Every structure is written in structure tokens, then in C-alpha cells.
């Protein structure tokens, strides 16, 4: 019976063909193989985001009722708190995984020819993930979400000339209010998924097309000495085990540290002390703060935005600068650039949390 069903499906969808292909595909095995799991983990957390997001959508009401609906989810619906906590924690783990994936790709030089588009699409996915995070953070419309969004919008708002207009457009007015929630909701559940999914498809197709990159130390070995394992079932089984561990980590975080809901947002109230944006914006927030205090006025704003745009651009175009498959001076410089970026992000993030403690 089972075979008959399989054959029926196979005849129409070509399962055996896909399986044979998956068995032929190999994954390199070396000292740095651990980093190969982070792309899959990012995908896994995105799937969790989508599933828990759909469940939250059943009860969430954007606009003036936003806070009340989240209050009901958190305090009345059976396991509503768990779904919401899982959604919030997986959002953070999702962005964390992408960051780890990005830095591992960078330091393994996996952006080099012919994987440039993999790098660009990955950067696009990270940007969209951060906008996902930012737009989702406001949706409960509690005190913390309200003021953190207000502070967060200072970053695009500080862009010279177009900044204020841009911030007004995002907010739906001069202040963060229920209209902002409506806009962020539409962005969060319609616009961003519509952009993210095709880009994700492209990214996965490129990974499939070019396979896993190996670090230079591995590439330098004779082919006979390199080790690899079949993608299916060997690497796939390990990937599933990693997904299980990730799911467990998420379950532990969501259960033991459930996402709290603060007081309803009140635009007339004073901002609670120590208000700050989410951790993945902390580096940008602190850098702008420093530049603003060192160079008051428009110069500080201009410098802040300039530093960011140039930095992001340099990071993005690294495959054009260090595109050769063999490392030379450019490869070393790119490596140092990566180390500087990691250090700068870490220092500014820690300083940011230190300043609002």
C-alpha cells in the first residue's frame, strides 16, 4: 500500500529523482563544518516565526485594540503566552542566527566567486529580518514598545534633509500612535513576507547551485585528502538534530523567561528610564549618540548617517574587493576589516547597554 502510494506520487512529482540528487550532493567535513548549520538554523527560526505569527494573527487586532488583544493573548488564551513568547524569542534567535551565519560566511570567504549573489541576497535577507524585528516590536503597543519605537525612529529620522519626512511617513504622522501600529502591522505581515520569501528562495537556490564553500585551509588540501558526507541522509540527519536542539533552546527560553507585557502605551507619560532599541540596533543607536555628542547639530547627523552608509556599502561590496579564490593582500585586508567591524559592533553594543543600565 505504502509503496503504491509512493509510486503514485513519484510518478507525478519525481521524488526518486530528487532523492537521488540529494544523495549525490555532498557537504564538506572539516574543522569548521559547525558553521554550516547556521544558515539552516536561520531558516528554522524563520519557519517558527511564520507558524507562531499565523497563530498570533488569529487573536491580534491592530490599531486602537492592539494592546488589549495582546493582553488577552498573554493572560487569557490557553498557551497564548507561550506562542507569543516563542514568537518573540525566535525573532531574536532568528536575527542572531543570521548574524552568526553572515560572519561565518565572511570569515570563511564564502562570498568569493561564484557566490557573490549569495552574499548580496543574504545581506538583503538580514536587512529585511531587522525590519521584521523593528516593525513587530511595536505591535503589542505597550509602554516599552512605544518608547523603543520612538527612539528607534530617531535613526532614520536623523538622515539629513529627508530624515524627518521619512520618519513621518513611517509613523503615519508626527507621533507614534495607532496609525503607526496599522502601518507596521501591514508591513510586518504582508509587505515584508512578500519581499522576504522570493529573496529566500533565490538565496536557497544559489546555495544549492554552488554548494558549500570551504575555508582556504581546506581548499589547499589535495582533493583525495578532503572529506565530505552525503547531504542525504547524513548531513540532513545532523541538521535535523541541530533544529531539535534549537527548538529546545527556544522552548526553554519561552517557558522559563516568558515575554512580558508592560503597561499600555501612554504618549503623555514620561519615557521609562533606560529606554533603548532592541539589541540588534544598539550598535547603530550608540554610534549615533556618540557622534551626536562629539559633533552637535547637523554635522553630527550627517557624519552618523555617512559612517553607516559607507560602512554598510563597504561590507556589501566586499566580494568585488576580495573576489579572488586565492588569498593575497586584499584577502588579508578584508579579514582585518571584518575583525574591525566585529569589534566595533561589540564595543558599541556593550557601551550602549552600559549607558542605559
Amino acid at each position, binding site marked *: 500500500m505504502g509503496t503504491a502510494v509512493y509510486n503514485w506520487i513519484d510518478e507525478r512529482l519525481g521524488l526518486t529523482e530528487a532523492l537521488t540528487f540529494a544523495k549525490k550532493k555532498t557537504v564538506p567535513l572539516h574543522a569548521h563544518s559547525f558553521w554550516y548549520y547556521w544558515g539552516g538554523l536561520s531558516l528554522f527560526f524563520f519557519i517558527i516565526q511564520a507558524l507562531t505569527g499565523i497563530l498570533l494573527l488569529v487573536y491580534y487586532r491592530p490599531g486602537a485594540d492592539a494592546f488589549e488583544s495582546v493582553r488577552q493573548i*498573554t493572560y487569557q488564551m490557553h*498557551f497564548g503566552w507561550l506562542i507569543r513568547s516563542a514568537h518573540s524569542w525566535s525573532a531574536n534567535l532568528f536575527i542572531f542566527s543570521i548574524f552568526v551565519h553572515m560572519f561565518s560566511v565572511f570569515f570563511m570567504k564564502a562570498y568569493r566567486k561564484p557566490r557573490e549573489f549569495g552574499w548580496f541576497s543574504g545581506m538583503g535577507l538580514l536587512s529585511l529580518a531587522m525590519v521584521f524585528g523593528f516593525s513587530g516590536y511595536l505591535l503589542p503597543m505597550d509602554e516599552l514598545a512605544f518608547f523603543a519605537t520612538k527612539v528607534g525612529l530617531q535613526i532614520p529620522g536623523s538622515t539629513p534633509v529627508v530624515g524627518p519626512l521619512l520618519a513621518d511617513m513611517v509613523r503615519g504622522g508626527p507621533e507614534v500612535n495607532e496609525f503607526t501600529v496599522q502601518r507596521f502591522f501591514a508591513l510586518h505581515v504582508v509587505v515584508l513576507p512578500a519581499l522576504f520569501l522570493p529573496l529566500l528562495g533565490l538565496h536557497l537556490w544559489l546555495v544549492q547551485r554552488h554548494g558549500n564553500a570551504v575555508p582556504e585551509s581546506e581548499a589547499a588540501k589535495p582533493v583525495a585528502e578532503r572529506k565530505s558526507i552525503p547531504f542525504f541522509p*547524513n548531513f540532513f540527519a545532523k541538521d535535523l538534530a541541530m533544529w531539535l536542539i534549537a527548538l529546545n533552546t527556544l522552548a526553554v527560553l519561552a*517557558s522559563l523567561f516568558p515575554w512580558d507585557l508592560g503597561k499600555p502605551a501612554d504618549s503623555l507619560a514620561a519615557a521609562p528610564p533606560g529606554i533603548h532599541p532592541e539589541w540588534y540596533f544598539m550598535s547603530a543607536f550608540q554610534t549615533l549618540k556618540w557622534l551626536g555628542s562629539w559633533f552637535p547639530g547637523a554635522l553630527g547627523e550627517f557624519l552618523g548617517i555617512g559612517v553607516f552608509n559607507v560602512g554598510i556599502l563597504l561590507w556589501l561590496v566586499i566580494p568585488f574587493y576580495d573576489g579572488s579564490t586565492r588569498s593575497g593582500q586584499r584577502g588579508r585586508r578584508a579579514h582585518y576589516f571584518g575583525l574591525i567591524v566585529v569589534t566595533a559592533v561589540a564595543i558599541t553594543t556593550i557601551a550602549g547597554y552600559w549607558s542605559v543600565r
Partner: protein
Amino acid sequence: MNYPFWNVPNVGSGWVIGMIAIFHVMISHFAVGGGFYLPLAERKALSGGRGQWCETLRGHAKFFLVLTGVFGAVSGVGIWFSIGLAHPEATSTLIHNFVFGWAIEWVFFMVELTTAAVYYYTWGRIDSKLHLKVGWVYAAASFLTLVIINGILTFMLTPGDTWLSVAGTGQEASKFWEAFFNPTYWPGLFLRIAVCVSLAGIWALVTTSRIDGEAFPKLKTDMVRWSAKWLIPSFLAMPLLLGWYLWAVPESQRALLTLGISTIGSGTFSQVTRAALVIVMTSATILGVVYFLAWRSPVDFSFSHALAVLALAVMATASGEYSREMLRKPYVIGRHMYSNGVRVKSVPQLNAQGFLPNARWIRADVSPEYAKGEAMFAGQCMSCHTIDGYRSMRRLLAGRNRAAIGNFLTMLHDYKPDSPYRRFMPPLSGSPDEIRLLGDYLDHIVSPTAPAPTGKAVASLH
């Protein structure tokens, strides 16, 4: 109330016990399960002519001896020290009832330690059949330590009606066997056996993961898979055993499991539900990870994979022990003694005569009013709460003024049948004057600008 108070800032004395206990359970349950793993594996090696197995098993026996004989024994003593300091009243009750139980356990414990050392040091030096017998003696002795301690641990949750009928009469020890074979004894024992067996497999995976898979693929495949199999029976039985255990737990305690289904927050006591979720989730993850990493790819099964499984086991054990402790709330010994060491039967007397008249450890370097408020906190709250850390009073009472704190204390003192706090918290015992001083003390803790119970400067105390 003649014992000094053990103040562990931020962490709380309960967590000191908890951390030592979780570490101890991971090792002591391995000591029992591993006690069966070693002779069974050795028998398999001897009967099947698997010479290479013996080399690995010898290494495992050395690891086993060091881990259980040193860390297991030391952490066991650590539990004694910590429970004696954190819960002197409860420890005293246990000693008075189970002194012979513990004496028997220590006899088995001495046999266990001795045979574990003999088993390792005589490997290859005595006849293999005799060596195997030493292993079986160890297994029996370690299993019997579990049989004994399980009676005492389960007694704390469900002492049983027979023992409770003589509690406080001085005749408690006459009901030793009724207290020992209490309502949760058998489900508790089988549940722990299941944990022991699975931990034996998990720790064995740590050792077998270190076999060189390239040089000895068959040896590694056989031993990793054989160790992984140890998880199957216990994981199949665990849901049934958990159900049996919960069925034996009193309804009022069982209800704690459902409190966190529809809500969150430390104030709503949903910790048991949340910890139970972690147990279920982590147990399922262990099974899945062992299947995908160890069973499917035994040759590639690495030390880091084994450590990941072990970390998951620590998480499941920690959640299990935490849930078990929380299920006892508001008691430390079910229906006999509240979690702050106050006996249930003593509450009316303490309310009439006061909580502090028998207290011998009240500070003399501050005003008597402040010292009494502080002693009330230490005696009735500090076994579960800290000032700033775990279940912090500053956080839980934040935003309440003196009147609100007073109302809350009155509610705890009245302990009405419909009070939601009855499920987790003991009643507040003491005279109205003592409760007022506790209120002043808490008010001063929560709002340092509020006047200290006497007006004397005491801010430097905290």
C-alpha cells in the same frame, strides 16, 4: 524557631540546595544506572568475544569511579550541609523519622564505593567471572541506595495519613514503614529507575563518543548504538510513569500543573506548568538528537555531540527536580510543615503567642523594632524570597505603599480558603504587632526613603 537563619543574598538558600541537588542527581542516578550498564556490557563483551569492548569499558569504569566516588559523594554531603542550614526544622523532622533509613543507606553506600573501586582496580587482574560478580554486587548496592532515599524524598511530598495522624505526638518514628512506603513511593521509584537507566546510556555515550571512528568503525558503531538503546525503555515508559506519579499526588498539588496554561508571570505562580513544558520538550529532544546523531551516524558521533546530549539531560533533570520541589508548595513536608519551616499545627499557637518569643537569633545591633521586622522576614519569607535577587521582594512589592503592603500581609495572615496564594505560599503567622513590624521592614526595603521601623538610621544595613 531556635535555629539561626541562613541568608544567601540574591540567589537564596533554596537555589543553593537546588544547584547542588541537580549536580548530584545527574551523578547519583548515573551511579545507579551505570552500575547495571557496566556488568551488562562486560557480560556482553565476554560472551561475544568482544575484546575491544573491554578496553573501552575499562576506561568507562575509571570515569565512572571518579565521577561517582568523588563528585557524587561530595555533592551528596553538600546536600546535607545545605538542607541543614536552609531548612533546619525540616531536616530535623527527617532525621528523627528516618535515622535508621539513612543508616541502612550509608551501609549500602559504603559497599557501593568499595566495590566501585575494586571493580576498576581488579580489571584484568582477577578471573573475569569474579570481576563480573563484583560488578553485580556494586549494581545491587547502588540500586538499594535508591530504594532507601526514594522513601525519604517521596515522604516529603506525600507523608500519608497514617504518619500525619501521629505527627507532633513524639510517636512519629513508630510509623516508619507507613511514612517510607507513602503514596508516591512506587511511582517515584519507577520514575527514578527510568531516569537512572537513561542517564546510564547518556553518560556512556560520552565515553563511547571518544572511540576513534575511523580506526575502529565497527567497535564505535556497536558501542554507540548499544548505549543509545538504553534510552529507549525509559523514554517509552516515562509518560506512563509520570502519569502514575501525578495520579498519586494530592489533587491540590496536581492543580499547580494547570495554573500556567492560560497566563504567565511570577505573581501568578505558573512556574510548575512552565517547568513541566521544559521537561516534556527536552526529553523529546534528547530522544530525537540521540536518534539522528548517535543511532543514524554512530561513526561520526563526536564528543561535542555527546556533550550536547548531556547538556540537554542536565536541563531535563533540572526542570524535573524543580517541578518536584514546586509540587510540594506550600509545604516542605506535605500537610505537616510549611515551606518556611512552620508546622501546620503550630499556626494557631504562633498567631496567639507570637512568632518571635522563641527566636534566639534576633540582631542586637539595630533597634528592637527593626530587628523584629527583619527576623520575621528571615523566619517566614527568606526560605523562598530574597531582597534583590530570586523572587525579589523589591521587585514583587514594587509600587506598593505601606498600606498596600499591610493589606497584602493581612491577606496572607488570614489565609482564607479562596485566597489564590494558598496554593503556593504558607500563611503568615504571628501576632498583629509582629506583622506590623514586618510590614514596616518590607516598606523600608521597597522604598528606602520610607522611615525605618524606628527612625534610627539603618540604610547601611542593606
